[in-house]
């Protein structure tokens, strides 16, 4: 099962070699990326049954965790890895010309690093992949045809840099307190060591840092500018998939470290603020791509509220919202590519291209949560989770969530109304082609509508795995290790040091008189 490292490594290999290959053989080179992604999907698909039966850990370099780095393969990680590779394949930048090798290399790096984020079982390794995803995204969001994209990318770079520093400080604090970076061992030690203001501060710093990509409330200034000016496929990829990977990392940290009610409450609060600010800004937005960007902030806020709920119900709601948003927001960004510019200019565009208009209405209704569509079920799960939990914070979240849904309905249906209004003067010319992919996503949404029951069962299983902290510990670290939950004060010997040669133990004793 160690082949599961290949979907991370092979795209990196191809990314390095693509500029070399594409110079003499541009025709061959442009097919290599998509072919590789298909192969990766096949590899990950093969691992699915095994990971579904029992999660497993793959030690990289043959060095057992916690000394080495491991990949932790459970159905949650695989689900996200599959989503990344599939969406990467669908949204592949099929550009030609001189820039093609660079763009495709960066796309491969982005896909590889996101897969790494999903699968890695080591905190610092996750940080490395997160950095790689950020740097690759800086290059990809630049659209040479738009000067605005350079400014947006610069702002993205600055905020992302701040986020990286915060994450690094957080990870340093964690390492200083616990002496380990392995997620499973951290989970084991967290109750004893990562308590008090220090542990909470470390978690909040990581929350803010990883939150940059996840469009978390105070660190999301980059979102509207970047999504409005980047190439549409890249906006779709970043908003649809990459933001969810950051959410996955944060959800993993929350479920594994069990930081207590304060941090969970903070996540809920930031999620609420994200909903409020995102949806209101989207309501005021005057062009479609900005509107979608702001509404994505709002929906990520809902996802954060879901994952902040304790227990399986929240994880289930969060996963459903994540998958729904992944399909729908990608589709909407692809549609927005043909409807650039001010909203006023969209008048009658749906009559010119009924298929595009119809798809927009389908996606919009699903986001709002009109009953039979999948978006409704996802939102219903979140409502049930919030209602079951109670308390003033979750009550507020519920109220804000309902209001946000009304606001969403208002602005999305306003656009839909405009699309099918009688055109004033010259109707906008429809862009040629480009609807195949959007139709595919729309079709996927309809398939999900029909298969909502088996989907819910699968997601329920995945959500069970997501919150199963003991399972993570059991399957991550070698079995013969000491029992779980040792923790205690930071000075105590971990089972690891006891398992070492006597020399190692002596050395540690020597260091601590």
């Amino acid at each position, binding site marked *: 099962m160690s082949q599961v490292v290949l979907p991370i*490594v092979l795209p990196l290999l191809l990314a390095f070699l693509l500029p070399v290959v594409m110079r003499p053989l541009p025709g061959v080179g442009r097919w290599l990326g998509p072919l590789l992604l298909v192969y990766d999907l096949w590899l990950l698909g093969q691992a699915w049954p095994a990971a579904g039966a029992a999660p497993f850990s793959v030690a990289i370099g043959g060095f057992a965790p916690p000394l080495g780095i491991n990949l932790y393969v459970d159905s949650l990680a695989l689900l996200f890895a599959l989503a990344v590779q599939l969406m990467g394949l669908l949204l592949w930048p099929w550009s030609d010309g001189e820039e093609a090798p660079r763009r495709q290399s960066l796309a491969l*790096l982005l896909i590889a690093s996101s897969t790494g984020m999903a699968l890695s079982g080591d905190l610092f390794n996750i940080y490395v992949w997160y950095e*790689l995803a950020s740097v*690759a995204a*800086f290059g990809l969001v630049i659209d040479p045809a738009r000067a605005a994209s350079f400014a947006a990318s610069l702002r993205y770079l600055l905020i992302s840099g701040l986020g990286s520093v915060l994450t690094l400080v957080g990870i340093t604090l964690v390492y200083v307190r616990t002496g380990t970076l392995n997620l499973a061992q951290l989970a084991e030690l967290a109750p004893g060591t990562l308590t008090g203001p220090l542990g909470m501060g470390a978690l909040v710093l990581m929350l803010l840092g990883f939150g940059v990509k996840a469009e978390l409330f105070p660190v999301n200034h980059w979102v509207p500018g970047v999504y409005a000016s980047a190439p549409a496929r890249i906006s779709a990829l970043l908003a649809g998939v990459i933001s969810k990977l950051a959410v996955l990392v944060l959800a993993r940290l929350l479920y594994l470290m069990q930081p207590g009610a304060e941090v969970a409450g903070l996540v809920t609060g930031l999620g609420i603020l994200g909903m409020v600010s995102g949806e209101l800004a989207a309501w005021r937005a005057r062009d479609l791509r900005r509107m979608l960007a702001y509404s994505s902030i709002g929906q990520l806020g809902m996802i954060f509220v879901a994952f902040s709920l304790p227990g399986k119900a929240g994880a289930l709601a969060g996963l459903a919202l994540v998958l729904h948003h992944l399909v729908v927001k990608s589709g909407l960004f692809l549609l927005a590519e043909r409807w650039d510019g001010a909203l006023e200019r969209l008048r009658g565009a749906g009559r010119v291209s009924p298929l595009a208009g119809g798809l927009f209405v389908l996606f919009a209704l699903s986001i709002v949560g009109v009953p039979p569509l999948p978006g409704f079920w996802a939102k219903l799960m979140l409502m049930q989770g919030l209602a079951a939990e109670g308390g003033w914070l979750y009550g507020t979240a519920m109220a804000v969530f309902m209001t946000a849904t009304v606001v969403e309905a208002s602005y999305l249906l306003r656009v839909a109304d405009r699309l099918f209004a009688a055109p004033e003067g010259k109707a906008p010319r429809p862009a040629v082609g480009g609807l195949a992919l959007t139709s595919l996503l729309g079709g996927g949404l309809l398939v999900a509508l029909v298969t909502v029951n088996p989907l819910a069962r699968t997601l329920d299983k995945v959500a069970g795995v997501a919150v199963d902290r003991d399972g993570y510990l059991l399957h991550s670290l070698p079995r013969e290790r000491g029992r779980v939950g040792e923790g205690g004060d930071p000075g105590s010997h971990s089972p690891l040091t006891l398992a070492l040669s006597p020399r190692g133990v002596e050395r540690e004793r020597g260091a601590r008189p």
Partner: protein
Amino acid sequence: MRRFTSLLFAGGLAFLLFSLVATLDFGDPPMRIGSGILAQAPAQVGTANIVTAVVLAYRGIDTLGELSILFAAATAAGLVLARPGRAVSAPKPGGFVLRVGADLLLPLLVVIGLYIIAHGHLTPGGGFQGGVILAAAFFLPLLASPGREPTHAGLSLVEGLAGGGFILIGLLALWQEGAFLEPLLGTGQLGALLSGGTLPLLYLAVGLKVGAELSALLARLMGEGHDVGD
């Protein structure tokens, strides 16, 4: 208003960080991973320089990620800077001392760079440090006589093949031993030049990759009027 919020945010952050540092107890960090690696590494990996064991063996995939970050940065810079029509005024040629001095330094820099890379598993140093020196060696003649054109095709080739080599060594290990990046070829005698299995080879790939990457980055920043790089 925006300035005020930024100030508030920065101030809050500074306060948070200071109050966190104030609660840190110094001098007695728990050495869970550290002591484990110190005890195991010489026998398990066979590098006299334990840092190398961490960088290439225990956390080898992190190093791969870091190489990829450098590559991504150079590639993204290429995308940003490859704008047509950036006219550059004719540079002033360097003086005699500068040019000859650069030519004399070049072989020394290359030798030192390669030495540091080749001894990365024995002494402090290694691929990252040696690679930076190699990049300096590459860049010295360009700085001394600015009219000279950097050779992009060769750089791009080294960039691709060195990175590819690192991964291929890892894949070979996956195929032979069943774990990606597992050291091959045995450990050898601790402290000998030929020891540490495939680790020196990995460091060579790292060194060449880092050198080529930094050179490419600098060459793109020098950007002539035409599309540089690829």
